[in-house]
């Protein structure tokens, strides 16, 4: 197994967890679940409360299915455990991953190093704003432009007699 690193907005940590394939017959806690990106989530719903972390497979960085799975797990199914985008991601997708609901990405150490630490960090700082309202991460890479406009409009409506 190659050396793997988990990259989140707070930093990098080695991570060699081997997420397990789902077995519906075994009714016990799951520490780390491997989720293929063509998974039918309805098979997993009963087990979700018992899952501590989910590693969504990214077999190629051009395959964006995992982004939709993260969105569904977080927003529709209320999953609150650790959510990791696992596989072939590049820094330029890091912010997207967090916006869709991932806590971190996990890539081969050699890949992380090839892209350099600066590139991973810069990816998070690239945009302070995003147009997609529901994908804004308050503490993270982007606030919603639509919400920011609303706030600015409200601020303009101030009743302060000194602001003309």
């Amino acid at each position, binding site marked *: 197994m190659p050396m793997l690193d988990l990259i989140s907005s707070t930093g990098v940590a080695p991570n060699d967890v081997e997420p397990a394939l789902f077995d519906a017959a075994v009714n016990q806690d799951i520490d780390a679940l491997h989720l293929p990106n*063509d998974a039918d989530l309805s098979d997993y719903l009963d087990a979700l409360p018992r899952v501590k972390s989910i590693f969504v497979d990214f077999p190629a*960085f*051009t*395959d*964006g*299915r995992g*982004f*939709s*799975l993260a*969105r*569904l797990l977080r*927003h*529709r199914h209320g999953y609150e455990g650790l959510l990791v985008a696992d596989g072939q991601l*590049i820094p*330029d*997708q890091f*912010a*997207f*991953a967090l*916006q*869709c609901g991932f806590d971190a990405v996990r890539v081969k150490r050699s890949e992380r190093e*090839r*892209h*350099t630490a600066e*590139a991973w960090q*810069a990816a998070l700082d*690239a*945009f*302070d*704003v*995003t*147009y*997609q*309202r*529901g*994908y804004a991460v308050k503490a993270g890479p982007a606030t919603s*432009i*639509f919400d*920011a*406009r*609303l706030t600015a*409009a409200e601020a303009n409506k101030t009743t302060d007699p000194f602001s003309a």
Partner: protein
Amino acid sequence: MYRYDEFDAEFVNARVAQFRDQVERRLDGRLSEAEFRPLRLMNGLYLQLHAYMLRVAVPYGTLRSEQLRMLAHLADKYDKGYGHVTTRQNMQFNWPVLGDVPDMLADLASVEMHAIQTSGNCIRNVTCDPYAGAAADEIEDPRPLAELLRQWSMLHPEFSFLPRKFKIAVTGAPTHDRAMVRAHDIGIEVVRGPSGEVGYHIIVGGGLGRTPIIGETLRAFCPKDELLPYLDATMRVYNRFGRRDNKYKARIKILVRETGIEEFRFLVDEEFKALDASDIMVSQAERDRIAAYFAPPEYASDIKALDLEAQPEAFRKWVETNVHTHVQPGYAIVNISLKDPERAPGDITAEQMRAVADLADKHSFGEIRTTHQQNMVLAHVRQDELRAVWDGLVAAQLEDANINLIGDIICCPGMDFCALATARSIPVAQKIAERFNDHARQQAIGEMQIKISGCINACGHHHVGHIGILGLEKAGVEFYQVTLGGDATQTARVGDRTGKGLSEAELIDGIERIVDRYMDVREGNERFLDTYQRLGAETFKEALYADA
């Protein structure tokens, strides 16, 4: 026209900086070519036969004069002095150097422009009826909707790595579709609902390419505030279930066809019901804010009637073919033909761009449109200034009077530029234009849309041309396949294949025989398309192959 606020400006500037960084990382090797490719494509940068090509977004085909002047500047400074209007209303530059591209993007950002999502497997630049806001037949100006879609789709975190490219077109005039909404992944028509309220008819799964399919109704009436959540639901179904095993089967049209429209609609509806719409939808106040930018200009009321009789014949002909009715009395919509037979269809020089920008400033509220037919439009011209506009166009050699006539050919770049081409397309367009150069003859033939693609990818929309031409190749020899009876409007239809391919010389003669046959058999004011529908393919096939 829409103006960026501080947030739009911040976003686009951040995008320029990001791309500069990506180019640096590519040049120093941190990004492999495989990794860089989708990133540069998402910024409109292609690698073509001879060089890079930068495709600049012209959102819904609308430009301010200073933006067109900036495009002229780019053409002069980074290209060979001209640009090319594409069938998706964008402007392409065929000769930039990679290292210059970040500077080009910075120049564009200074006039609120960008090249974001003009290619790649993401939601592409949204296209629109070029007569939007000026047409007498529209229910509502579709540009505020198009602008909202531009913003919603910009660097979408979930939908930037789709199975394949995704094209959206909108029109406010469902009775006269000038935006080809049925030939797009999603087409949106502004319509009236049961109680007269304005909403959207959503069409899905249209597209040309190898497998031409006319789109079907996904939702007959979508209330305005539900649009973004409903599109999110549609995109999610596509992102999850669209095929990724075969690039030629990855468009949403194949998913819709393989799933069946009923089942596809069911999947979207389930998704739509389950998602939190309030999370995605945009407030009425925000929609009003955007719409305010597209309020009608301040029309004058002191316009003198135009005495055509007193005008030169060339001007009268131009008025007849290139000028279209405007919703406001006294005004007119002016089409500027970029179909000079000497040039590639859609090409425009930097000098001509400046001339058009000046005319727009003087006569059309400083605004210009590009069209999917690869022409330009001045949308709001006083009728008593039409002569001045024409004089300006004559001086700039842009006075071709051939809009919607046989000389107004849509054509992809083909073998002259495109790495995927199997045959040349531009020279064929030029030869046809030359053959029918006589204006009186063009006028007599009437409305006729010839569309040419240089390979099966169909960027020249040949499937929906009244006469469609597809360039192919076998054992190093180019040949051309003809389709007849295609239609790109609200009565959209894929043309019928005629039979075996023809050499270029046979093709030009064959087209002329088809046209002559039509002239012989047409009744009254029938367009070619009407005659074709009345008589069927046989007689025209016979004419096409009469020599073979």
